[in-house]
């Protein structure tokens, strides 16, 4: 039987939930499993109700599950709230000093988490490590890999800390071995140690994509769920010669990025909706001055401050139309961490080649969830800086015109200081030389030149992924981070004899050229699935393709879709 287990670790912020999920994730991928970790946290630092959900499987797992097989409850209140999510045959671990409502249930295992932690020479706070050990025992997973992991993680904190943690883990492990007489239905075979998989979240994937594509300058202002990108780049900045300049606000961040890009460095910023609002004026600046720039907008539920630590896909139309006036841009919405890695790379190339802004639209679910990737093939990455002139390209440097008219819309640029030529970049309408103009004729030519880039950009857009290749009467339509849940839903529906296909867009604007005549007939039902209230992508899709959407499955409570949820709504509606 192929394994597919879900484990939820719940508790208050500050109880170390993430150390547990991280330990599980790391150990499991190193023993051949695929792991997906989703976190569900409140916008606070201590207390409240939070959980991480770890899904482990032999096959790739890319979405959350509704129900869990194992619940690790670090605190009583959150435990009671999360118990309904435990499968009937699932097992729960909890601290024995925080009595469970139904303490007679043999699957609810009281463990003296905090006491064992204190005894093991740690403090109560190390209850999380005890729980990790306990969970490993339940899963029948060997203890040693966990101990190795703890050694690695606490390596620079000194031997004593490592020892304390390992003792805690062992105490939890032994406790379960001795006291748990029940049967955990889904053991995990330890298997062989291997290091051929990666576990990383969308933020990290995008930061890596940027770095591997030659990112040199980043500026940003913290805003969930984008902050991880900035922090990761900051951490690696020294080693990889990247400047990460913390900005006073998002307006400054994006303008710094435009300055750095104008000067010749690959530059990027990331933010979330509220910060993106503040960057919108500068998008037009990049469009008008024809300065390449990459901006990541990691969505969270709006409007306004909304639900800061949760997920939504509600900035789509805003992002496509953001900024006054008209200027070319591209908008990507990668479906998972792997696609996100390459999307950033492509974004840089398009931004440079078309000298215009490229926006990557993600969300909290993609940015914060950890998924397993076999690896990134660096050979697939090329760095194309577009048309840049050097001294040898000029007969006379003084003839250089920054905005020389060209049918493609792209005029060769120069890097200031690198040639004898100089350039004038202007946010006002300008002549070929870059000087301010009031001429209607010049305006017409320049505006057409810029807008012509859209034609080229459109050809660059990847068509949506169609999954699987065989036919289906039902089509699920999606974009961005719902990809994992949708694929899982499609697989399950097909196995339940509902012949289904997925059309998933990771590149959205300009809307890719695509032909669905092969896969859509008169009795195909297209069901769009989106994490927003109004079905924004469904509108765009039917406007662009002329195809009607039969049903919209919309969710806007800040939580990601599960396959099960999608399927039940489909069944209800069809």
């Amino acid at each position: 039987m192929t394994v597919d287990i879900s484990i939820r670790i719940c508790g208050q912020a500050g109880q170390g939930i993430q150390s547990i999920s991280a330990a599980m994730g790391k150990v499991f991928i190193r023993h051949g499993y695929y792991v997906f970790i989703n976190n569900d946290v409140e916008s606070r630092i201590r207390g409240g109700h939070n959980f991480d959900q770890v899904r482990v499987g032999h096959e790739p797992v890319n979405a959350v599950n509704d129900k869990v097989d194992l619940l690790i409850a670090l605190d009583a209140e959150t435990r009671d709230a999360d118990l309904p999510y435990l499968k009937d045959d699932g097992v729960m671990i909890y601290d024995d000093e925080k009595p469970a409502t139904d303490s007679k249930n043999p699957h609810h295992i009281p463990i003296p988490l905090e006491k064992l932690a204190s005894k093991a020479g740690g403090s109560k706070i190390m209850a999380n490590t005890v729980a990790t050990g306990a969970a490993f025992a339940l899963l029948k997973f060997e203890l040693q890999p966990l101990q190795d992991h703890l050694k690695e993680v606490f390596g620079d904190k000194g031997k004593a800390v490592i020892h304390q943690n390992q003792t805690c883990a062992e105490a939890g492990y032994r406790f379960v071995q001795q006291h748990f007489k029940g049967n955990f239905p889904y053991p995990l075979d330890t298997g062989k140690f291997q290091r051929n998989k990666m576990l990383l979240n969308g933020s990290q994937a995008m930061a890596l994509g940027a770095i591997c594509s030659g990112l040199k300058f980043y500026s940003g202002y913290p805003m969930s769920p984008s902050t991880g990108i900035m922090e990761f780049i900051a951490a690696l900045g020294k080693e990889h010669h990247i400047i990460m300049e913390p900005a006073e606000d998002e307006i400054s961040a994006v303008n710094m990025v435009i300055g750095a890009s104008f000067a010749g460095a690959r530059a990027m910023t990331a933010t979330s909706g509220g910060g993106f609002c503040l960057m919108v004026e500068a998008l037009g600046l990049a469009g008008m001055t024809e300065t390449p720039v990459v901006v990541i907008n990691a969505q969270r539920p709006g409007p306004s401050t909304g639900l800061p630590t949760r997920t939504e896909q509600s900035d789509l139309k805003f992002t496509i139309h953001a900024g006054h006036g008209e200027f070319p841009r591209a908008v990507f919405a990668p479906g998972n961490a792997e696609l996100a890695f390459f999307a950033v790379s492509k974004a840089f190339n398009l931004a440079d080649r078309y000298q215009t802004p490229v926006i990557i639209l993600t969300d909290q679910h993609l940015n914060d969830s950890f998924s397993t990737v076999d690896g990134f093939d660096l050979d697939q990455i090329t760095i194309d800086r577009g048309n840049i002139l050097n001294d040898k390209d000029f007969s006379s440097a003084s003839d250089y015109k920054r905005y020389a008219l060209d049918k493609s819309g792209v005029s060769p640029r120069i890097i200031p200081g690198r040639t004898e030529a100089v350039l004038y970049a202007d946010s006002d309408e300008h002549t070929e030389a870059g000087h301010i103009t009031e001429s209607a004729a010049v305006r017409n030519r320049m505006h057409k030149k810029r807008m012509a880039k859209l034609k080229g950009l459109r050809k660059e857009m990847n068509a949506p992924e169609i999954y699987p290749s065989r036919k289906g009467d039902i089509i699920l339509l999606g974009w961005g981070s719902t990809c994992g849940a949708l694929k899982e839903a499609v697989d399950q529906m097909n196995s339940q004899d509902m012949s289904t296909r997925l059309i998933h867009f990771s590149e959205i604007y300009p809307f890719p050229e695509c032909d669905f005549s092969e896969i859509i007939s008169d009795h195909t039902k297209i069901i769009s699935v989106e994490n927003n209230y109004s079905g924004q992508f469904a509108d765009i899709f039917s406007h662009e393709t002329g195809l009607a959407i039969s049903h919209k499955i919309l969710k806007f409570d800040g939580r990601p879709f599960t396959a099960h949820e999608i399927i039940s709504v489909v069944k209800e509606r069809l």
Partner: protein
Amino acid sequence: MVSLEDFYSDDPIAWCPGCGNFSILKSLKQAFVDLGKKPHEIVIVSGIGQAPKTPHYLRCNAFNGLHGRTLPVATGVKLANHELTVLAQGGDGDGYGEGGNHFIHAMRRNVDITYLVHNNQVYGLTKGQTSPTSGEGFVTRTTPQGSVNRPINPLLLAIASDCSFVARGFAGEIDHLSELIRKGITHKGFALIDILQSCVSFNRVNTFKWYKDRVYRIDEDPEYDPKNRLMAFEKAAEWGEKIPIGIIYSTDRPALNSQIPAIKDEPLVKQRVDPSDFVDIFEMFR
């Protein structure tokens, strides 16, 4: 060797005849010549307003961006290529109104750029509304009863932010201004030069004569020590019958661009990147 001609631009000037900006343009060109800077070694980042049209009227690299956003763009340029001579330039509305936050933060960052603010105490390009430096009682179409806000004192804000070079010039003293600009450019760190500039179209109070009658050079006072911050606060607060011009405050502290390990060896724009350099970067995730 560079000469004034090297800085000639054929873009026709759109300022009003008699505007103080003409003199500032002259001072600026002269400063570049005196420093022996070549046009392509210079980037001027400007905002939107009358003053920010300046870079079009000389030959150099220019980025004429958004109203109020000169300093972040200039910071980005300098950090990407610290071998360039980078100036930011705009009006009082641009710099102290719309751009006020960047002003405060650019100073604490101390990035090595020179910031010229053409301070005519009014919004020129939009036809004469009250600006952050407009005097109390100043009557405009947005303040028909006269402005009731205390004007911003940019020099005090700068000293409070420990800006490492704080000066005031006057468009009517071209050589002195040119010298200030030169020193500002030479200074390693953020240099603010607030420039008193008459606007013949919209400021009938703070005219050329008004300034001329009031300004005096602080460098003529041998006692004045621009390294003394408290003295600088006192001097910067002077405004009215007598208005000091010159270097009000200056202090030595490392420029941002000299503190960043990533550009110790060479500027970002000179660093070549090959994707294959990064095979090891993934190890931490395995």
